[in-house]
């Protein structure tokens, strides 16, 4: 009976705790620029980076959280807990990491950790209040991983903003992302160089209104 009451109480507390700051997740395939975006947001508003970035896929292999990030735009304030997630993939091959210059043992460890990271990212879908889906605008948006991520968010009624990252690159094709997901707002950005970031912040307010 006491245990049940404790569970009930912790449930109530969790509801209030969660309502205080919304949880804004960053999802996408590996190397789309999720952590670059998290770093951009954190540098802009709290003056520090969130995580390490690397050209080798699966650099982020655990959920990273930054609490109480407050963004301002047009005189309005928005506070949230920012959650950077490992890239979701259907394949992880340690030999690909070796090709990028890693030692075999290090590559195998990275692959093992990356598989756990993907599972963790999927499990965290249920904890999000709103999600930024970061796609590489130089890549084919019809990849099944993108469709699975967005399909799962839609099934959970979680608001989604799609960000076509790397628009500073010549091969970037934002129109293709817009054509693939016409029911969503798509904003082209460069998380690394800050292109169109003000537009992104404006859309962020619309996302969580």
């Amino acid at each position, binding site marked *: 009976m006491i245990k049940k009451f404790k569970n009930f109480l912790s449930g109530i507390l969790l509801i209030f705790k969660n309502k205080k700051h919304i949880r804004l997740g960053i999802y996408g395939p590996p190397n789309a620029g999720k952590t670059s975006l998290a770093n951009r947001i954190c540098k802009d508003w709290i003056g520090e980076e969130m995580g390490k970035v690397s050209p080798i896929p699966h650099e982020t292999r655990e959920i990273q959280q930054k609490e109480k990030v407050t963004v301002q735009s047009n005189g309005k304030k928005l506070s949230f807990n920012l959650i950077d997630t490992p890239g979701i993939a259907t*394949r*992880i*091959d340690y030999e690909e990491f070796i090709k990028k210059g890693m030692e075999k043992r290090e590559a195998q460890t990275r692959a093992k950790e990356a*598989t756990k990271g993907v599972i963790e990212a999927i499990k965290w879908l249920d904890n999000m209040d709103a999600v930024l889906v970061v796609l590489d605008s130089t890549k*084919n948006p019809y990849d*099944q991983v993108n*469709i699975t991520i967005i399909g799962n968010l839609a099934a959970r009624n979680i608001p989604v903003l799609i960000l076509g990252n790397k628009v500073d690159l010549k091969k970037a094709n934002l129109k293709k992302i817009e*054509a693939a997901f016409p029911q969503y707002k798509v904003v082209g950005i460069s998380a690394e160089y800050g292109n169109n970031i003000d537009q992104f912040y404006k859309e962020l307010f619309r996302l969580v209104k």
Partner: protein
Amino acid sequence: MPLTMQYVPFEEVSGLDSERKIQKLIKIVKQNKLVLMEGTLTPQEEADLIEETMETIDSKFKGVEITSFNPLEKNSRQIQDKLKQLFIETLFGRRRGLTIIGPANIVREIRKDPNRIQLFLSNRGR
């Protein structure tokens, strides 16, 4: 060594719960076969498939490549299209369309455009 494609008719998986369905599909893929499944998975089943794949990855099994094609899922903004899709799925299940799943050591990439699917095969593992 030829690449084997195994056709999985809708009736063969429609009676299974999600867990069994996914285990069945992964079992076939782990035999180095390409699955051609009639119908599509739900988003939750796709996420479960990725999770199960990640649990299964080892030095020999590198994961899967997957794509699905459903003529009803045109990402339409039109409410009547969505209702039509919901109606058909409620009556007949996710029978329309096709799902392709291949082992990552054989299928290097599946490239999908709205109306075209291309399979790029790897020589490794064959």
